């Protein structure tokens, strides 16, 4: 059993290790080792296309994380207070948002944006000399949709596991509803909100397929990586890949650590 488990870990991490190893390879040939070098990191981070794509991706991921954490938490709190059809509708929407494949979300958003622009743009152009087009904002909007659902599920799980007597005690001690929320509910929910925000960040930072359709002329890092791989890769990609892989591994471990600590406190 131990051997089996070790093999599984090797299976899971060997490809990641391969990318990391090759990123330090001096030669241009991907599978031939010619010596240690950090040259490709220098090349990658002085390539304006890459740094710009990285910047775009970080902005999109940050906006997605913040917006979905806020809206997702609000939705979870709102759903706690609802019964009947409204709750059924929202539950269904949350599951649909999670179940519909990313590629379908991307495509359907694309055709919807294009259809709306076709109608709105002539008028906007005539009146304000303005044209709507897809870009960072449309990527953020599609990412937030999916992550609201994820955060709402995570926060709701936490709300349901929460000790009601704390809220009642706070109310008995004449705290205002807002006071109770700020001093009792929010601190208890904080770990799951934070973990949800980190997951939203990683999802958004990693997403290729949705952004591929709705990014318009903007280039995110995964879109850049995809096209670089298609063109036949330069070892720069391994350097970027290493940075991306290790950053998201670290973020995920932090998210898990926060969740675990929160669980222990509750």
């Amino acid at each position: 059993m131990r051997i089996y488990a070790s093999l599984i870990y090797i299976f899971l991490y060997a490809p990641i290790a391969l990318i990391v190893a090759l990123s330090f390879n001096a030669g241009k040939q991907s599978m031939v080792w010619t010596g240690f070098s950090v040259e490709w990191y220098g090349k990658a981070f002085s390539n304006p296309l890459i740094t710009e794509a990285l910047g775009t991706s970080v902005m999109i991921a940050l906006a997605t994380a913040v917006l979905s954490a806020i809206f997702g938490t609000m939705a979870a709190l709102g759903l706690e207070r609802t019964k009947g059809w409204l709750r059924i509708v929202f539950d269904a929407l949350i599951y649909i948002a999670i179940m519909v494949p990313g590629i379908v979300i991307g495509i359907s958003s694309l055709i919807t944006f294009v259809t709306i622009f076709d109608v709105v743009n002539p008028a906007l152009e005539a009146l304000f000399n303005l044209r709507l087009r897809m870009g960072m904002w449309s990527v953020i909007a599609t990412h937030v949709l999916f992550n609201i659902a994820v955060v709402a599920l995570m926060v709701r799980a936490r709300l349901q596991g929460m000790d009601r007597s704390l809220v009642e005690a706070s109310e008995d001690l004449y705290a205002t509803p807002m006071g109770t929320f700020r001093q009792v509910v929010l601190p208890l929910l904080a770990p799951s909100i934070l973990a949800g925000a980190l997951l939203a960040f990683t999802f958004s930072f990693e997403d290729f397929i949705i952004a591929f359709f709705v990014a318009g002329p903007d280039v995110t890092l995964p879109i850049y990586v995809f096209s670089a791989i298609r063109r036949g890769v330069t070892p720069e990609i391994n350097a970027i890949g290493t940075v991306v892989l290790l950053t998201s591994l670290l973020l995920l471990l932090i998210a898990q650590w926060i969740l675990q600590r929160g669980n222990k406190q509750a």
Partner: protein
Amino acid sequence: MSTHTRSPLVTGLLLAPAGVFFFFMLILPLLVMLVFSFGERAAAGGYVPAFTFDNYLNLPARGKAFLNTLTLAPLGTLLTAVIAFPMAYFLAVKVPPKWRVVMLVLVMAPFWTSQLMRYYAWIMILGSKGLPAWLAWIGITDVRLLNTPTAVLIGAVYGFLPLMVPPIYVSLEKLDKRLLEASADLGATPWHTFWQITLPLSLPGVATGSMLVFILLMGDYILPQYLGGGKVFFIGNALVDLFLQSRNWPYGAAVSVALVIIMFVTVYFYMRFVLGKTDQRRAALV
């Protein structure tokens, strides 16, 4: 929160942002896609309003993509479940409690890192300079892995093991150990106990994991694109082709609608079947 603080206005305000997103970014696009699927392709690509079922009647033209997806996605899910089960069992039963969570997180972590980079690594591993070259070195020549269904299945297990292990782990960890002792006391062999108690009681976890993996595999694009290399393609690859290359939006919309319907129907029946079964087992046990 007690009842007197529940104002409908506050509830409405709390739900409003999510509601706006769900309407404009989910319901509206899905409706637009449904409408498009009954339309016609414009001469230069795109969409012309119409009401025709031609796009749906034409679905068999992309039959290969549907066939590949509907065989390799279930097969990949099954394979992932079979390989994940012993791992989840090991983590839940054999590993000391203080190490469990850390080891489980290490299984999950790769899923959250760049899918593009991880499958790119597999192109190198399965490509002619990778595994086949090493196999040739020990005398097994002429192995072709990349761009075969085998490569896609390896990729499926690799990509989705991190999602399959946790739900199975949770169901195994919750399992009442007294049931296993009782079974042993009553003279059952370990193998018997496994088949009669452990496996049936962990089925909900297996079902949850399989459902997650199946959904994601069915809609996948990068995995078949990189490891199937255009030879083993999924519905996702057909969609990218239809929307970005041939710009046949109405037909692409019909393919998307078909994908979503197939997905929801399979998941519905799968859950009904599996959950129904475990409920019966549980009832029988009690």
